[in-house]
Protein backbone atom coordinates (compact mmCIF):
# COMPACT_ATOMS: atom_id res chain seq x y z
CA UNK A 1 0.00 0.00 0.00
CA UNK A 2 1.53 3.27 -1.11
CA UNK A 3 0.13 5.79 1.32
CA UNK A 4 1.39 8.82 -0.58
CA UNK A 5 -0.35 7.73 -3.77
CA UNK A 6 -3.53 6.94 -1.86
CA UNK A 7 -3.67 10.32 -0.12
CA UNK A 8 -2.74 12.25 -3.26
CA UNK A 9 -5.27 10.33 -5.32
CA UNK A 10 -8.07 11.04 -2.89
CA UNK A 11 -6.98 14.66 -2.50
CA UNK A 12 -7.36 15.18 -6.23
CA UNK A 13 -10.51 13.19 -6.89
CA UNK A 14 -12.64 13.48 -3.75
CA UNK A 15 -13.20 17.26 -3.93
CA UNK A 16 -14.18 16.93 -7.57
CA UNK A 17 -16.70 14.16 -6.99
CA UNK A 18 -17.96 15.97 -3.89
CA UNK A 19 -18.42 19.16 -5.88
CA UNK A 20 -20.49 17.31 -8.48
CA UNK A 21 -22.58 15.79 -5.71
CA UNK A 22 -23.23 19.16 -4.09
CA UNK A 23 -24.17 20.66 -7.44
CA UNK A 24 -26.47 17.86 -8.47
CA UNK A 25 -29.77 19.62 -7.94
CA UNK A 26 -28.50 22.88 -9.40
CA UNK A 27 -30.39 24.61 -12.15
CA UNK A 28 -27.83 26.45 -14.27
CA UNK A 29 -30.53 28.58 -15.83
CA UNK A 30 -31.62 30.15 -12.57
CA UNK A 31 -29.55 33.21 -11.84
CA UNK A 32 -30.47 35.21 -8.75
CA UNK A 33 -31.27 38.77 -9.77
CA UNK A 34 -28.97 41.31 -8.14
CA UNK A 35 -31.81 43.84 -8.34
CA UNK A 36 -33.79 42.27 -5.51
CA UNK A 37 -34.06 44.69 -2.60
CA UNK A 38 -32.75 47.55 -4.72
CA UNK A 39 -34.39 50.54 -6.27
CA UNK A 40 -36.11 49.60 -9.51
CA UNK A 41 -34.30 51.01 -12.57
CA UNK A 42 -36.31 54.01 -13.80
CA UNK A 43 -38.01 53.98 -17.17
CA UNK A 44 -40.32 56.04 -19.29
CA UNK A 45 -41.77 54.10 -22.21
CA UNK A 46 -44.36 54.63 -24.90
CA UNK A 47 -47.34 52.24 -24.85
CA UNK A 48 -48.08 50.05 -27.87
CA UNK A 49 -50.59 51.78 -30.10
CA UNK A 50 -49.56 55.26 -28.93
CA UNK A 51 -50.39 57.48 -25.99
CA UNK A 52 -48.55 59.28 -23.20
CA UNK A 53 -45.31 57.59 -22.03
CA UNK A 54 -45.63 55.61 -18.83
CA UNK A 55 -43.03 56.65 -16.26
CA UNK A 56 -42.16 54.37 -13.36
CA UNK A 57 -41.40 57.30 -11.06
CA UNK A 58 -45.00 58.54 -11.39
CA UNK A 59 -46.23 55.24 -9.92
CA UNK A 60 -44.51 55.70 -6.56
CA UNK A 61 -46.91 54.71 -3.78
CA UNK A 62 -48.36 51.86 -5.79
CA UNK A 63 -47.34 48.25 -6.12
CA UNK A 64 -46.11 47.71 -9.69
CA UNK A 65 -46.01 44.42 -11.57
CA UNK A 66 -43.75 44.57 -14.66
CA UNK A 67 -44.14 41.64 -17.03
CA UNK A 68 -41.61 41.18 -19.83
CA UNK A 69 -43.13 39.22 -22.68
CA UNK A 70 -43.34 38.61 -26.42
CA UNK A 71 -45.90 37.13 -28.77
CA UNK A 72 -43.46 34.52 -30.07
CA UNK A 73 -42.99 33.09 -26.60
CA UNK A 74 -45.30 30.18 -25.84
CA UNK A 75 -45.28 30.42 -22.01
CA UNK A 76 -46.09 34.14 -22.33
CA UNK A 77 -49.18 33.29 -24.30
CA UNK A 78 -50.05 30.71 -21.64
CA UNK A 79 -49.86 33.22 -18.79
CA UNK A 80 -51.62 35.99 -20.70
CA UNK A 81 -55.14 35.20 -19.36
CA UNK A 82 -53.83 35.09 -15.79
CA UNK A 83 -52.34 38.55 -16.17
CA UNK A 84 -55.31 40.12 -17.95
CA UNK A 85 -57.65 38.84 -15.25
CA UNK A 86 -55.51 40.20 -12.43
CA UNK A 87 -55.87 44.03 -12.44
CA UNK A 88 -59.58 44.08 -11.65
CA UNK A 89 -59.02 41.79 -8.66
CA UNK A 90 -56.49 44.10 -7.03
CA UNK A 91 -57.99 47.49 -7.76
CA UNK A 92 -56.03 50.67 -8.33
CA UNK A 93 -53.33 50.03 -5.68
CA UNK A 94 -51.62 47.56 -7.97
CA UNK A 95 -50.49 48.66 -11.41
CA UNK A 96 -49.71 46.13 -14.12
CA UNK A 97 -47.36 46.93 -16.98
CA UNK A 98 -46.20 44.82 -19.87
CA UNK A 99 -42.84 45.41 -21.52
CA UNK A 100 -42.52 43.93 -24.98
CA UNK A 101 -39.27 42.12 -25.50
CA UNK A 102 -37.86 41.83 -29.01
CA UNK A 103 -41.06 41.77 -30.98
CA UNK A 104 -42.65 43.66 -33.84
CA UNK A 105 -45.27 46.24 -32.88
CA UNK A 106 -47.90 45.01 -35.42
CA UNK A 107 -47.59 41.45 -34.07
CA UNK A 108 -48.20 42.69 -30.54
CA UNK A 109 -51.14 44.84 -31.58
CA UNK A 110 -52.93 42.05 -33.38
CA UNK A 111 -52.18 39.65 -30.51
CA UNK A 112 -53.68 42.06 -27.98
CA UNK A 113 -56.71 42.67 -30.18
CA UNK A 114 -57.30 38.94 -30.32
CA UNK A 115 -56.53 38.00 -26.70
CA UNK A 116 -57.53 41.18 -24.94
CA UNK A 117 -55.49 43.62 -22.88
CA UNK A 118 -56.18 44.89 -19.38
CA UNK A 119 -53.14 47.15 -18.96
CA UNK A 120 -50.64 48.93 -21.21
CA UNK A 121 -47.85 47.06 -22.92
CA UNK A 122 -44.82 49.25 -23.47
CA UNK A 123 -42.40 49.46 -26.37
CA UNK A 124 -38.81 48.89 -25.29
CA UNK A 125 -36.77 50.50 -28.05
CA UNK A 126 -33.29 49.01 -28.25
CA UNK A 127 -33.95 46.70 -25.31
CA UNK A 128 -33.00 49.50 -22.92
CA UNK A 129 -35.32 48.49 -20.08
CA UNK A 130 -34.89 44.76 -20.68
CA UNK A 131 -31.17 45.18 -20.17
CA UNK A 132 -31.56 47.44 -17.14
CA UNK A 133 -33.79 44.80 -15.55
CA UNK A 134 -31.43 41.96 -16.42
CA UNK A 135 -33.76 39.93 -18.59
CA UNK A 136 -32.44 36.46 -19.45
CA UNK A 137 -35.50 35.46 -21.47
CA UNK A 138 -39.25 35.79 -21.42
CA UNK A 139 -41.53 35.65 -19.56
CA UNK A 140 -39.95 37.28 -16.53
CA UNK A 141 -41.95 39.35 -14.05
CA UNK A 142 -40.76 41.91 -11.52
CA UNK A 143 -42.73 42.98 -8.43
CA UNK A 144 -41.99 46.50 -7.25
CA UNK A 145 -43.09 47.74 -3.80
CA UNK A 146 -44.81 51.14 -3.38
CA UNK A 147 -41.49 52.63 -2.22
CA UNK A 148 -39.89 51.73 -5.57
CA UNK A 149 -37.83 48.74 -4.45
CA UNK A 150 -37.84 45.47 -6.33
CA UNK A 151 -39.21 42.83 -4.02
CA UNK A 152 -39.18 39.74 -6.19
CA UNK A 153 -38.64 38.40 -9.68
CA UNK A 154 -40.37 35.41 -11.17
CA UNK A 155 -39.05 33.51 -14.18
CA UNK A 156 -41.59 31.56 -16.20
CA UNK A 157 -45.36 31.64 -16.69
CA UNK A 158 -47.32 32.92 -13.68
CA UNK A 159 -50.24 31.11 -12.12
CA UNK A 160 -52.93 33.01 -10.17
CA UNK A 161 -51.77 31.68 -6.79
CA UNK A 162 -48.14 32.61 -7.49
CA UNK A 163 -49.18 36.04 -8.64
CA UNK A 164 -51.22 36.61 -5.45
CA UNK A 165 -48.28 35.58 -3.30
CA UNK A 166 -45.85 37.94 -5.01
CA UNK A 167 -48.26 40.88 -4.99
CA UNK A 168 -49.00 40.39 -1.30
CA UNK A 169 -45.28 40.20 -0.59
CA UNK A 170 -44.72 43.51 -2.35
CA UNK A 171 -47.62 45.13 -0.52
CA UNK A 172 -46.50 43.72 2.85
CA UNK A 173 -43.14 45.33 2.35
CA UNK A 174 -44.86 48.70 2.18
CA UNK A 175 -46.71 47.97 5.42
CA UNK A 176 -43.57 46.96 7.31
CA UNK A 177 -41.82 50.06 6.02
CA UNK A 178 -44.63 52.24 7.24
CA UNK A 179 -44.63 50.61 10.68
CA UNK A 180 -40.85 51.04 10.83
CA UNK A 181 -41.24 54.71 10.21
CA UNK A 182 -43.76 55.02 12.98
Amino acid sequence: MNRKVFVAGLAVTLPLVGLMLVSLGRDPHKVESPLLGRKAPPFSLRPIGGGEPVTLASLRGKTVVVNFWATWCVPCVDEHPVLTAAPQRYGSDVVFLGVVYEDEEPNVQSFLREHGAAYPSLVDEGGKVSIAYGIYGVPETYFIAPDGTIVSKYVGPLRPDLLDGFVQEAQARAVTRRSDAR
Partner: protein
Amino acid sequence: MKRTAVLLALLLAPLAAAQTPPDHTPVDLAHAESIAGPPRAARLAGAALEAEAKHIAAVLRCPVCQGLSVGDSPSAMATNMRQQIRELVAAGFDEDQILSYFEASYGEFVRLQPPLRGVNWLVWIAPGLGLLLGLGVVSWVLRGASAETSETPAAVAATGPAVDVVPDPLPDDPALAKAVLRVRELAYGWPGGVRPGKD
Protein backbone atom coordinates in the same frame (compact mmCIF):
# COMPACT_ATOMS: atom_id res chain seq x y z
CA MET B 1 -12.54 54.84 -3.15
CA LYS B 2 -15.63 52.89 -4.04
CA ARG B 3 -17.61 54.53 -1.24
CA THR B 4 -16.70 58.01 -2.35
CA ALA B 5 -17.76 57.12 -5.85
CA VAL B 6 -21.14 55.98 -4.58
CA LEU B 7 -21.46 59.11 -2.48
CA LEU B 8 -20.58 61.25 -5.43
CA ALA B 9 -23.11 59.40 -7.53
CA LEU B 10 -25.79 60.04 -4.93
CA LEU B 11 -24.99 63.72 -4.85
CA LEU B 12 -24.86 64.05 -8.59
CA ALA B 13 -27.80 61.83 -9.41
CA PRO B 14 -30.57 64.43 -9.08
CA LEU B 15 -28.50 66.93 -11.01
CA ALA B 16 -27.88 64.52 -13.83
CA ALA B 17 -31.50 63.47 -13.88
CA ALA B 18 -32.60 67.04 -14.16
CA GLN B 19 -30.27 67.72 -17.04
CA THR B 20 -31.19 64.75 -19.19
CA PRO B 21 -33.93 65.51 -21.67
CA PRO B 22 -36.42 62.72 -22.54
CA ASP B 23 -33.70 60.79 -24.25
CA HIS B 24 -33.64 58.62 -27.30
CA THR B 25 -30.20 57.20 -26.68
CA PRO B 26 -30.13 53.44 -26.34
CA VAL B 27 -28.89 53.69 -22.77
CA ASP B 28 -30.08 55.67 -19.76
CA LEU B 29 -26.84 57.50 -18.93
CA ALA B 30 -28.22 58.94 -15.69
CA HIS B 31 -29.12 55.45 -14.56
CA ALA B 32 -25.67 54.20 -15.55
CA GLU B 33 -24.12 57.02 -13.56
CA SER B 34 -26.21 56.21 -10.51
CA ILE B 35 -24.71 52.72 -10.64
CA ALA B 36 -21.15 53.23 -11.80
CA GLY B 37 -20.46 56.80 -10.78
CA PRO B 38 -19.55 59.67 -13.10
CA PRO B 39 -17.51 58.78 -16.21
CA ARG B 40 -13.86 58.32 -15.37
CA ALA B 41 -12.29 57.93 -18.78
CA ALA B 42 -11.88 60.11 -21.83
CA ARG B 43 -14.80 60.29 -24.25
CA LEU B 44 -13.90 58.19 -27.23
CA ALA B 45 -14.99 58.31 -30.85
CA GLY B 46 -14.25 56.62 -34.16
CA ALA B 47 -11.84 53.72 -34.30
CA ALA B 48 -10.73 54.08 -30.66
CA LEU B 49 -14.37 53.80 -29.56
CA GLU B 50 -14.96 50.71 -31.70
CA ALA B 51 -11.80 49.04 -30.40
CA GLU B 52 -12.67 49.70 -26.76
CA ALA B 53 -16.29 48.61 -27.29
CA LYS B 54 -15.14 45.42 -28.98
CA HIS B 55 -12.76 44.72 -26.14
CA ILE B 56 -15.52 45.14 -23.55
CA ALA B 57 -18.06 43.13 -25.55
CA ALA B 58 -15.63 40.22 -25.56
CA VAL B 59 -15.61 39.93 -21.76
CA LEU B 60 -19.39 40.28 -21.28
CA ARG B 61 -21.59 37.23 -21.44
CA CYS B 62 -24.59 37.39 -23.75
CA PRO B 63 -27.43 36.65 -21.29
CA VAL B 64 -29.78 34.96 -23.75
CA CYS B 65 -27.10 32.76 -25.34
CA GLN B 66 -25.23 29.71 -24.20
CA GLY B 67 -21.78 30.76 -23.12
CA LEU B 68 -21.15 33.21 -25.94
CA SER B 69 -19.82 36.68 -25.38
CA VAL B 70 -21.79 39.77 -26.32
CA GLY B 71 -19.15 40.37 -28.97
CA ASP B 72 -19.59 36.95 -30.55
CA SER B 73 -23.34 36.52 -30.31
CA PRO B 74 -25.53 37.29 -33.31
CA SER B 75 -28.66 37.62 -31.09
CA ALA B 76 -30.73 40.79 -30.91
CA MET B 77 -30.05 41.14 -27.21
CA ALA B 78 -26.31 41.11 -27.80
CA THR B 79 -26.69 43.63 -30.61
CA ASN B 80 -28.54 45.94 -28.22
CA MET B 81 -25.91 45.45 -25.56
CA ARG B 82 -23.14 46.24 -28.02
CA GLN B 83 -24.95 49.46 -28.87
CA GLN B 84 -25.19 50.32 -25.16
CA ILE B 85 -21.50 49.61 -24.70
CA ARG B 86 -20.69 52.00 -27.55
CA GLU B 87 -22.83 54.73 -25.99
CA LEU B 88 -21.24 54.24 -22.59
CA VAL B 89 -17.73 54.30 -24.02
CA ALA B 90 -18.62 57.42 -26.00
CA ALA B 91 -19.88 59.03 -22.79
CA GLY B 92 -16.54 58.38 -21.13
CA PHE B 93 -17.25 55.39 -18.90
CA ASP B 94 -14.28 53.08 -18.48
CA GLU B 95 -14.26 49.28 -18.78
CA ASP B 96 -14.67 48.69 -15.07
CA GLN B 97 -17.64 51.05 -14.87
CA ILE B 98 -19.34 49.53 -17.87
CA LEU B 99 -18.89 46.03 -16.52
CA SER B 100 -20.33 47.01 -13.16
CA TYR B 101 -23.25 48.73 -14.93
CA PHE B 102 -24.21 45.43 -16.60
CA GLU B 103 -23.39 43.48 -13.47
CA ALA B 104 -25.89 45.58 -11.52
CA SER B 105 -28.72 44.17 -13.61
CA TYR B 106 -27.44 40.71 -14.53
CA GLY B 107 -25.20 39.76 -11.62
CA GLU B 108 -21.63 38.54 -11.65
CA PHE B 109 -22.75 35.85 -14.11
CA VAL B 110 -22.52 38.39 -16.92
CA ARG B 111 -18.76 38.74 -16.60
CA LEU B 112 -16.94 36.10 -18.62
CA GLN B 113 -13.72 36.96 -16.88
CA PRO B 114 -14.07 36.41 -13.13
CA PRO B 115 -13.36 39.62 -11.17
CA LEU B 116 -10.87 39.32 -8.34
CA ARG B 117 -13.13 39.02 -5.35
CA GLY B 118 -13.82 36.35 -2.73
CA VAL B 119 -12.61 32.93 -3.76
CA ASN B 120 -12.37 33.99 -7.39
CA TRP B 121 -8.66 34.67 -7.10
CA LEU B 122 -8.17 30.92 -6.79
CA VAL B 123 -9.11 30.36 -10.41
CA TRP B 124 -6.52 32.90 -11.49
CA ILE B 125 -3.61 31.56 -9.48
CA ALA B 126 -4.43 27.85 -9.77
CA PRO B 127 -2.70 27.30 -13.14
CA GLY B 128 0.43 29.07 -11.89
CA LEU B 129 0.43 26.99 -8.71
CA GLY B 130 -0.08 23.90 -10.84
CA LEU B 131 2.93 24.80 -12.96
CA LEU B 132 5.12 25.34 -9.90
CA LEU B 133 3.95 22.07 -8.39
CA GLY B 134 4.55 20.24 -11.66
CA LEU B 135 8.03 21.68 -12.10
CA GLY B 136 8.75 20.74 -8.49
CA VAL B 137 7.68 17.15 -9.08
CA VAL B 138 9.66 16.88 -12.30
CA SER B 139 12.85 18.25 -10.75
CA TRP B 140 12.38 16.00 -7.75
CA VAL B 141 12.03 12.96 -10.00
CA LEU B 142 15.08 14.03 -11.99
CA ARG B 143 17.16 14.62 -8.90
CA GLY B 144 16.23 11.16 -7.69
CA ALA B 145 17.20 9.75 -11.08
CA SER B 146 20.53 11.56 -11.26
CA ALA B 147 21.39 10.59 -7.68
CA GLU B 148 20.80 6.99 -8.63
CA THR B 149 22.83 7.18 -11.80
CA SER B 150 25.76 8.88 -10.12
CA GLU B 151 25.84 6.11 -7.53
CA THR B 152 26.25 3.45 -10.17
CA PRO B 153 28.03 4.88 -13.17
CA ALA B 154 27.84 1.49 -14.89
CA ALA B 155 24.08 1.82 -14.93
CA VAL B 156 24.35 4.75 -17.30
CA ALA B 157 25.64 2.47 -20.02
CA ALA B 158 22.99 -0.11 -19.21
CA THR B 159 20.01 2.14 -19.85
CA GLY B 160 18.00 1.72 -22.98
CA PRO B 161 17.12 -1.59 -24.61
CA ALA B 162 17.87 -4.52 -22.39
CA VAL B 163 20.46 -6.24 -24.60
CA ASP B 164 22.92 -3.42 -24.53
CA VAL B 165 25.73 -5.16 -22.71
CA VAL B 166 26.95 -6.22 -26.15
CA PRO B 167 28.32 -3.11 -27.86
CA ASP B 168 26.17 -2.27 -30.85
CA PRO B 169 27.45 -4.62 -33.53
CA LEU B 170 27.76 -3.88 -37.21
CA PRO B 171 27.61 -6.15 -40.23
CA ASP B 172 30.88 -6.75 -42.10
CA ASP B 173 29.65 -5.48 -45.44
CA PRO B 174 30.66 -1.79 -45.35
CA ALA B 175 27.67 -0.61 -47.40
CA LEU B 176 25.27 -2.47 -45.13
CA ALA B 177 27.13 -1.23 -42.05
CA LYS B 178 26.76 2.31 -43.28
CA ALA B 179 23.06 1.77 -43.82
CA VAL B 180 22.65 0.30 -40.33
CA LEU B 181 24.40 3.33 -38.85
CA ARG B 182 22.09 5.65 -40.78
CA VAL B 183 19.04 3.77 -39.67
CA ARG B 184 20.22 3.83 -36.07
CA GLU B 185 20.75 7.53 -36.32
CA LEU B 186 17.20 7.92 -37.52
CA ALA B 187 15.58 5.44 -35.19
CA TYR B 188 17.46 6.39 -32.03
CA GLY B 189 18.61 9.86 -32.86
CA TRP B 190 22.22 8.81 -32.22
CA PRO B 191 24.43 11.22 -34.12
CA GLY B 192 26.20 9.29 -36.86
CA GLY B 193 24.46 6.13 -35.70
CA VAL B 194 26.84 5.76 -32.75
CA ARG B 195 25.46 5.45 -29.22
CA PRO B 196 26.19 8.69 -27.39
CA GLY B 197 28.55 8.41 -24.45
CA LYS B 198 30.17 5.25 -25.87
CA ASP B 199 33.49 6.82 -26.73
